[in-house]
C-alpha cells in the first residue's frame, strides 16, 4: 500500500488549502465547542451536587407535610435522637407559607414566601447574608432577613420596619445564598425569614391557610439516615408526610440535572452535525477542484485506495485540529454557562475542565469529520486517469457504488449513535435522528423544489442582471442546497424556540391586556372578612367579583373503596420495626403489575374545591349534565375536571366520598368538565352543587381589576393593613415572574442554538468560498464582455438575497409547523405567528447571507479581468 506516500501526499496537499483548512476546522470547532461546554458543565454540576449534597438538604433527614406535626411524630423524632448512641443529634423546624409583607415607611406591599426557621437550621451548609453573619442573629426574634429582590420591590432599606400579619419586624439583612435554593423561585414570591418563635404572634398560620411544615433532623451518625428513611417512609406516607435524605436529594438532583444537561447537549450535537454538513460540502467541492491533480496521480500510477486514503487522512487531521480548537473554545464557554443558568441551579457550580467531556468532544469531532467526508471522498476512487487527456468537471458517474450505500448507512447510524450516547437512551436517539433527518429532508426538498421551480418557471421578463443572479441558484455547482440546509437548520431551531416561548407568554399577556378581565386576586379571605374586603374594593372604585368559596378536602373513598387507611403507628425501635404491610384495601398503591390502579397523586392530594350553580366561561361540559333545580335526596352532585377523572378512573355516575376536615360528604359524579387553565381566574378540579359545603370550614377568593399599578398597590396595601392574613396576587407581577423564568430557562437553549447558527454560517462561508473560483471566472468573463463593477455587484446581491430569503422562508415555515405542534400537543397553548419578529429573523438571515456572500466574493469585484484570464 505504501503508506508513507499516502501520508506525505496528504501533508503536502494540505498546504495550498489554508482557506479550506480554516473553514473545515471552523465547521467542526463550533459543534465541538458547544458539546464540550455543555457536557463539561454537566459534569461540573454533578460534581458540585455531590460535594454540596449535605448543604442542599441542610440536614441528614427531612420530614415534610401540609399539616402541623402531630405529637407522635415529634416524640418519635425525640426518642430516635435520644436512642442514637453516637449522640450529637438535633432537630429543627421550618414553617413556610405565603403572606403579604408591608413596609409602612414606603407603603410598599408584596406577596412573599415566609419561612419561619427554628434554631439550628441549617445543620449543614452556610447561609450568607449582607451585612455578613446575620443569620444566627435571626433567632433573637423580631428580625427578618429578606431576598435582595424584595427591597427594591418594597422601596425598603435595611433597618426599615416590615409588617407581617399582626407583627412588625426589623429588616436586618438580605440573604445572598441559601444552599439548595433555586434563584428564580424568588421571582414568584421573594422569600423572607423569621424566627420560629415569632411565628405564632403574626397570626398568619390559621386554619385553612396553605402551609408547608418541615422537620429537619441531624443524626449523630449520618450514615443511618438512609436506613431510617427506608424503614419509615411508608408509614409516614400514610400520615401524608414525606421523608427525604441527603442521598435522595443528591440522587434526584443529579439525575435531573444530568438528564437536562444531556438533552441540552442534543442542541450542541445539531451544531456538530451541521459542521459535518459543512465538511461534506467543502470536501465535495474540494474534490471537484482536485480532479486534475487526482487524475495525474492516477496516471502516474497511484492506486484509487492510495489517493482515497490520502484525502481521508487530510479530513481526519482537520477533524482533529477542529476538535482541538473546539475543545479549547468549549472550555472557555464553560466558564460563561454558569452565569446564564445560575438562577436555575440549586448549587454553586465549581468550573473545571472535564477530561471526559474533552475526550468525548474531540472524538466526536473527528468521527463526524470523517463520516461526513467519507461520502464525497468515495468519488475520488472513480476519477479516471483519462481525465488528464480530456477535461471533465465531475467524477465519472459510473454504476452506483455499493460503498456509497455503506457510507450512507454509517452516517445514519452515527447520528443515531451519537444522539443515543448523548442522552443515554436509544429510543430518544432514534427520535432525534428521525427529527434531524426529517428537518434535513424537508430543507433539502425545499431547496430542490426551489431549483426545479426556478428553472421551470423562470421569470424571463426580469431585467438581465436579476435573471443572471437568480439563474446562479440553479446553475451547475450552485450552492442552493447547502446554504438552505446549513442556514435553514440553525434558523429553524432558533425560530422554533422563539415561537414556543412567544406563545407560552402570549397566554398571559392576552389575559393581562384584555379589558375588564381581573388582574388582582385576593385569597385566604376568612368567611367573616369577605364583606370587609368587598367594601374596600368597592370604595376604591374597583369592585370585586362575587367571592368564590374554597373548601379543602381529601378523597375518603372511591366507588366504595377506601383510599386511605388510618395512620400507622410509628415505632422507634431500630430492629424488627413494625412497618405495617401495605393495606390491601388501599387503592393508592403505586404497585407494579396487576390491573392499573388510580394514580396516587390524584387520590392522595388535597383538593381545594368550590360550590356553585353555574359553569364559568373557562369551563366546557364534556360529559354528564350540569345540575339544575334544588338538591334532591341521596348523594350530592359533583363535577370533576376530565383529566382528574381519568386519573381517578371514575366516570359520570360513580360515587366519591370526600373527607372535609373529618366530616364525610358522599357525592356522585354528575358531569365532567374541560378547563382552560390559561385564564387568570379560579378554576377547580372538583365543583360541588350548592347545599353541601356551605357549613364546612372555608376561605374565599375575590378577583378585581385595577388598570394602574398605583391603584393595584393601594388596594393590596389597604387590605393587607386591615386583614393581614389575606394575600394578594398581582397578575402583572406573576406575568413578569413567568416571563423572567421562561427567559432564563430558555437562555441556555438559545445560547446553544446559536452555535448551530454559527456552524451554519461557517458552512455558508465554506459554500460561498469554495464556489468562489467559479464566480470569479464568471464575473471576470462578464467584465471582459463589458459589465461594470456595479452590474456584477447587482448580480451577486440578487443571488445572495434570493438565497437568504429562501433559507429564511423554509426555516420559518418549518418552525411554524414544529411550534404549532409543540404548542398544541405539548404545552396545550394556543398558537399564533408573531409576524414582526419573524420578519426580523428573515432580515437577519438575508443580511447574513448577503454579507458573507459579498465578503467572499469581494475578489470578483476587485480583480482586474486580465489577471484572472492569465491565471487560467
Amino acid at each position, binding site marked *: 500500500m*505504501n503508506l*508513507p*506516500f499516502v501520508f*506525505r*501526499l496528504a501533508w*503536502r*496537499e494540505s*498546504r*495550498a*488549502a489554508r482557506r479550506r483548512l480554516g473553514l473545515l476546522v471552523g465547521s467542526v470547532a463550533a459543534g465541538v465547542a458547544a458539546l464540550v461546554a455543555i457536557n463539561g458543565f454537566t459534569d461540573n454540576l454533578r460534581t458540585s451536587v455531590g460535594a454540596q449534597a449535605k448543604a442542599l438538604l441542610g440536614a441528614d433527614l427531612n420530614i415534610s407535610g401540609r399539616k402541623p406535626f402531630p405529637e407522635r411524630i415529634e416524640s418519635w423524632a425525640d426518642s430516635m435522637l435520644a436512642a442514637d448512641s453516637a449522640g450529637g443529634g438535633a432537630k429543627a423546624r421550618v414553617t413556610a407559607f405565603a403572606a403579604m409583607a408591608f413596609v409602612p415607611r414606603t407603603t410598599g406591599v408584596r406577596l412573599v414566601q415566609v419561612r419561619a426557621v427554628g434554631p439550628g437550621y441549617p445543620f449543614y451548609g452556610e447561609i450568607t447574608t449582607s451585612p455578613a453573619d446575620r443569620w444566627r442573629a435571626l433567632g433573637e426574634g423580631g428580625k427578618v432577613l429578606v431576598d435582595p429582590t424584595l427591597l427594591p420591590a418594597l422601596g425598603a432599606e435595611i433597618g426599615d420596619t416590615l409588617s407581617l400579619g399582626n407583627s412588625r419586624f426589623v429588616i436586618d439583612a438580605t440573604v445572598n445564598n441559601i444552599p439548595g435554593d433555586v434563584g428564580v423561585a424568588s421571582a414568584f414570591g421573594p422569600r423572607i425569614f423569621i424566627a420560629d418563635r415569632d411565628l405564632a404572634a403574626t397570626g398568619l398560620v390559621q386554619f385553612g391557610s396553605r402551609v408547608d411544615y418541615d422537620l429537619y433532623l441531624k443524626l449523630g451518625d449520618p450514615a443511618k439516615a438512609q436506613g431510617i428513611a427506608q424503614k419509615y417512609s411508608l408509614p409516614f406516607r400514610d400520615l401524608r408526610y414525606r421523608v427525604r435524605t441527603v442521598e435522595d436529594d443528591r440522587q434526584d438532583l443529579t439525575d435531573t440535572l444530568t438528564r437536562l444537561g444531556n438533552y441540552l447537549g442534543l442542541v450542541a450535537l445539531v451544531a456538530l452535525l451541521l459542521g459535518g454538513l459543512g465538511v461534506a460540502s467543502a470536501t465535495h467541492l474540494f474534490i471537484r477542484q482536485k480532479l*486534475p*491533480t487526482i*487524475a*495525474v*496521480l*492516477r*496516471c*502516474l*500510477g*497511484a*492506486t*484509487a*485506495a*492510495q489517493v482515497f486514503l490520502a484525502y481521508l487522512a487530510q479530513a481526519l487531521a482537520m477533524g482533529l485540529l477542529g476538535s482541538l480548537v473546539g475543545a479549547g473554545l468549549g472550555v472557555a464557554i464553560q466558564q460563561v454557562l454558569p452565569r446564564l443558568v445560575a438562577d436555575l441551579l440549586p448549587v454553586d457550580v465549581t468550573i473545571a475542565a472535564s477530561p471526559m467531556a474533552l475526550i468525548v468532544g474531540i472524538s466526536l469531532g473527528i468521527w463526524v469529520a470523517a463520516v461526513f467526508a467519507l461520502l464525497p471522498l468515495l468519488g475520488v476512487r472513480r476519477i*479516471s*486517469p*483519462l481525465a*488528464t*487527456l*480530456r477535461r471533465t468537471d465531475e467524477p465519472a458517474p459510473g454504476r452506483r457504488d455499493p460503498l456509497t450505500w455503506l457510507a450512507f448507512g454509517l452516517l445514519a447510524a452515527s447520528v443515531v449513535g451519537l444522539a443515543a450516547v448523548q442522552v443515554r437512551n436509544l429510543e430518544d436517539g432514534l427520535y432525534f435522528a428521525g427529527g434531524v433527518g426529517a428537518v434535513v429532508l424537508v430543507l433539502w426538498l425545499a431547496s430542490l423544489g426551489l431549483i426545479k421551480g426556478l428553472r421551470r418557471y423562470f421569470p424571463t421578463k426580469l431585467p438581465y442582471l436579476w435573471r443572471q443572479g437568480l439563474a446562479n441558484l440553479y446553475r451547475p455547482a450552485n450552492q442552493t442546497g447547502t446554504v438552505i440546509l446549513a442556514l435553514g437548520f440553525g434558523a429553524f431551531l432558533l425560530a422554533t424556540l422563539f415561537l414556543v416561548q412567544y406563545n407560552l407568554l402570549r397566554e398571559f399577556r392576552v389575559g393581562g391586556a384584555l379589558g375588564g378581565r381581573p388582574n388582582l386576586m385576593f385569597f385566604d379571605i376568612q368567611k367573616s372578612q369577605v364583606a370587609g374586603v368587598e367594601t374596600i374594593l368597592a370604595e376604591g372604585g374597583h369592585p370585586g367579583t362575587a367571592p368564590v368559596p374554597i373548601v379543602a378536602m381529601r378523597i375518603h373513598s372511591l366507588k366504595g373503596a377506601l383510599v386511605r387507611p388510618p395512620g400507622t403507628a410509628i415505632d422507634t425501635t431500630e430492629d424488627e420495626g413494625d412497618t405495617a404491610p401495605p393495606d390491601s384495601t388501599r387503592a393508592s398503591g403505586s404497585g407494579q403489575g396487576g390491573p392499573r390502579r388510580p394514580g396516587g397523586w390524584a387520590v392522595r392530594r388535597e383538593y381545594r374545591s368550590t360550590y356553585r350553580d353555574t359553569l364559568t366561561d373557562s369551563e366546557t361540559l364534556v360529559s354528564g349534565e350540569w345540575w339544575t333545580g334544588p338538591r334532591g335526596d341521596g348523594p350530592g352532585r359533583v363535577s370533576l375536571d376530565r383529566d382528574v377523572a381519568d386519573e381517578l378512573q371514575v366516570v359520570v355516575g360513580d360515587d366519591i366520598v370526600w373527607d372535609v376536615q373529618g366530616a364525610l360528604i358522599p357525592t356522585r359524579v354528575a358531569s365532567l368538565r374541560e378547563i382552560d387553565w390559561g385564564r387568570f381566574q379560579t378554576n377547580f378540579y372538583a365543583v360541588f352543587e350548592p347545599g353541601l359545603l356551605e357549613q364546612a370550614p372555608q376561605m374565599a377568593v375575590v378577583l378585581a381589576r385595577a388598570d394602574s399599578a398605583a391603584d393595584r398597590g393601594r388596594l393590596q396595601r389597604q387590605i393587607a393593613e386591615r386583614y393581614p392574613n389575606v394575600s394578594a396576587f398581582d397578575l402583572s407581577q406573576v406575568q413578569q415572574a413567568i416571563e423572567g423564568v421562561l427567559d432564563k430557562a430558555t437562555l441556555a437553549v438559545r445560547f446553544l442554538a446559536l452555535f448551530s447558527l454559527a456552524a451554519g454560517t461557517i458552512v455558508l462561508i465554506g459554500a460561498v468560498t469554495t464556489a468562489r473560483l467559479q464566480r470569479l471566472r464568471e464575473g471576470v468573463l462578464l467584465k471582459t464582455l463589458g459589465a461594470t463593477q456595479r452590474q456584477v455587484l447587482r448580480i451577486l446581491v440578487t443571488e445572495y438575497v434570493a438565497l437568504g430569503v429562501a433559507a429564511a422562508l423554509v426555516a420559518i415555515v418549518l418552525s411554524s409547523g414544529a411550534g404549532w405542534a409543540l404548542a398544541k400537543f405539548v404545552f396545550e397553548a394556543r398558537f399564533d405567528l408573531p409576524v414582526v419578529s419573524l420578519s426580523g429573523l428573515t432580515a437577519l438571515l438575508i443580511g447574513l447571507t448577503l454579507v458573507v456572500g459579498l465578503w467572499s466574493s469581494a475578489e470578483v469585484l476587485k480583480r482586474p479581468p486580465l489577471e484572472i484570464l492569465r*491565471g487560467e
Partner: protein
Amino acid sequence: MTSSANGTMLSCEGLTQTYLSGGRRLTVLNNITFSLERGGFLAIVGPSGSGKTTLLGLLAGLDRPSAGRVVLDGHDLGSMTEDERAELRSQKVGFVFQSFHLIPTLTARENVQVPLELRGEPAEERAQELLARVGLGDRSHHYPSQLSGGEQQRVALARAFSARPQILFADEPTGNLDAKTGGSIVDLMTGLNREIGTTLVLVTHDRDLAAKARRMIRLADGNVVEDITHS
C-alpha cells in the same frame, strides 16, 4: 516482428473504440493494429478529431477499448484491473501532457518525486539531479504557478523520467509552448530516449517534432492512413 522478450515494447491488435453519442454509435478508432520495438520513437499525427488522443489513452491503459487488445511490455492490459494497470504505470510508464499537469500544491522537486515515492524509492536526490538535467536545479522549491510554461513542461519531463520508465507517452508536449521552448523540450526527450533507451510514443500536430521520430503513424477518422518508418 519480435517478441516482447527480445524487443517488442508495445503492441495493439484490432484496437477499436466506439462511443454512443445522441443514440448513434460513433467510431473513434477503427481496428488499429501495430507494434513498437523497445527503445523506439513513434509519433502519432493527424488532424483534430482523428482519434490520436483516444489511441494514446488506450495504449497507456488509461481507458479500456471497445474491442481489440493492447500488450505493454508483455502485459495484456485488457486482463488487468484499474489498480493493476496503475501499478504497471508506476513501474514502467511516464507521461508528459500538453497542459503539463503538474500538481499545483507541490513544489517542482516534489512533483518530480511523486513517481519514485509511489514506488517507495528514495526520491530527493534523484529528483534534484533530474531537475538539474532539465536546467532547473535552482528552481526546485518553486511551485508550478511560479514557473513559466516551458519550465513547467521541463519539470513534467523530469517527473516523467524520474522512475526510469520503459516507455514515455506524450500528448502534444509542445502544444502550449512557443517554437523555441518546444524545440528544447523535444531535444531533452530525444536525448533521454537515446541515453536510457526509453521508448517514446507521442501525439502531435507539430510537423518538425513528428519528423524527428523514427516512425510516424498518421490517423484520419479513426483509421491508420499512413505508417512510415525512417531509417
